[in-house]
């Protein structure tokens, strides 16, 4: 059929009939376009996963509300009651809840996202679709949970501080965090596929991050207590999680002003765009290698 000089002949023949190499990474532009055309798959997949997650539990989707509440209760007991870190913060419950919910959103995106491709290998090896749809569906899943948590937060703040116009700022704040989360999920999805050890390591990374992000205590107040020099707070403010927590607290809590971090909105905006763009770029770089082996 094909002679020994097949190499150039085959390539020429392929060119003549407009055939293209089968395992080649699409250019970034058409990749994003293809991704957009699969948005319905992302939505359905996320819905299916949420459904499957609670399908076995007797209380079903009620766990979507119970999980964040129980989480917050445990942290309140540990930090608010036992360790007494609440001193100086007026509405400590709302302060704590906002911190935990925002942090958990990013944390779950990272840890779940790092397995989003590995757990779907058979799907990847069967069908052609832009692989980024899977991490995106995972983010959507967590966003769904986050919105339930936000609802709880609104109820709590509504009963304690009362509703305010500044609540509307939650919308851009959430948007920024979603952008950041998409980026970081894509990064960890790629790393998790090729270095599966990362799933063992991530819980420790995120826990360290948890304690450094000013979730149970006010960072400025804490630093004042230990007489830290002024630049420390400036450095800590660059932590993206701290920024996302802070902009949510600024939007919801009136008395948050003394505990505010410097430049939280600008830092949050920069992180969002940088992370989103680099996440897509980094993930797309390995598009043709997912599911190999």
């Amino acid at each position, binding site marked *: 059929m094909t002679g020994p000089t097949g190499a150039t002949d085959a390539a020429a023949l392929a060119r003549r009939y407009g*055939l293209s190499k089968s395992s080649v990474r699409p250019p970034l532009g058409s990749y994003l376009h293809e991704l957009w055309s699969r948005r319905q798959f992302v939505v359905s997949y996320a819905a299916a996963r949420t459904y499957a997650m609670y399908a076995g539990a007797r209380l079903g989707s009620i766990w979507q509300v119970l999980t964040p509440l129980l989480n917050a209760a445990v942290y309140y007991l540990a930090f608010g009651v036992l360790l007494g870190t609440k001193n100086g913060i007026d509405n400590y419950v709302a302060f704590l809840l906002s911190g935990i919910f925002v942090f958990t959103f990013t944390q779950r995106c990272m840890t779940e996202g790092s397995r989003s491709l590995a757990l779907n290998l058979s799907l990847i090896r069967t069908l052609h679709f832009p692989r980024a749809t899977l991490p995106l569906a995972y983010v959507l899943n967590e966003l769904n949970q986050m919105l339930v948590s936000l609802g709880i937060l609104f109820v709590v703040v509504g009963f304690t501080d009362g509703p305010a116009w500044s609540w509307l700022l939650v919308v851009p704040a959430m948007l920024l965090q979603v952008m950041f989360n998409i980026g970081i999920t894509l990064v960890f999805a790629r790393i998790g596929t090729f270095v599966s050890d990362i799933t063992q390591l991530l819980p420790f990374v995120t826990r360290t991050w948890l304690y450094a992000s000013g979730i149970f205590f006010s960072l400025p107040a804490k630093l004042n207590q230990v007489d830290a020099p002024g630049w420390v707070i400036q450095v800590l403010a660059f932590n993206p999680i701290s920024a996302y927590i802070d902009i949510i607290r600024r939007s919801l809590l009136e008395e948050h002003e003394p505990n505010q971090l410097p430049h939280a909105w600008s830092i949050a905006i920069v992180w969002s765009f940088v992370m989103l763009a680099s996440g897509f770029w980094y993930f797309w770089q390995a598009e043709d290698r997912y599911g190999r082996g």
Partner: protein
Amino acid sequence: MGEAEPTVIADRLDIIYKVIAGQGGKGTAATALRRIVKRQDRPTIREVHAVKSVSFTAYKGDAIGVIGRNGSGKSTMLRAIAGLLPPAAGAVYTGGRPSLLGVNAAMMNDLTGDRNVVLGCLAMGMSAAEIQRRYDEIVEFSGIGDFIDLPMSTYSSGMAARLKFAIASAKTHDILLVDEALATGDAEFRVRSERKIKELRDQAGTVFLVSHSLDVVQETCNRALWLDAGVLKLDGPVDEVVAAYIKSTRS
């Protein structure tokens, strides 16, 4: 064959992949540590040269049976054609996106059959309206019946295979790669799926069929590739290749 339009061209295709053959040693933390201290690369990573310099050209309307012993690289080659395994050397050129249909293509087992139908179709890039239009046809073709409302984890392997085949064949593919998917179905389903493959051929598509059942290959294909230990041993009309293959297994 000269004027026929090619759809798949394999050009001296080589595929090498790495497999992790277990932990090595006793698999304890101590042996893992010793391995790292001694700076050994994971000794259990083995390179498998699965496909060796395979070249062929497939044309529109071809149904090509791929035969050979277990582990001769048949499934690996299909994956490379589908673009799911990058070649180590050489290249595969295809017109359009080939779709691979295999037995181990699990979908979401916690979910019901009908949800899997929708998800699978969406992943293939069908629109919601298109899925709605073809849904009944897919379920009807799969022959699953009332089980469509039950989670896929309750299906037998044959039922799951039927549903997957029904989903994958809902879309008109230019190039369809079928990997043993028909082996688990019952006689009735085999007849149906063979008819479907013929239909695809008539729509000027190209079908690759990996199968160990030679009579299925002979019935549905016009051409066959015989792979032996990763090397393309024979490429030609199905009857000739199958006859040669049978002869070699008997000797």
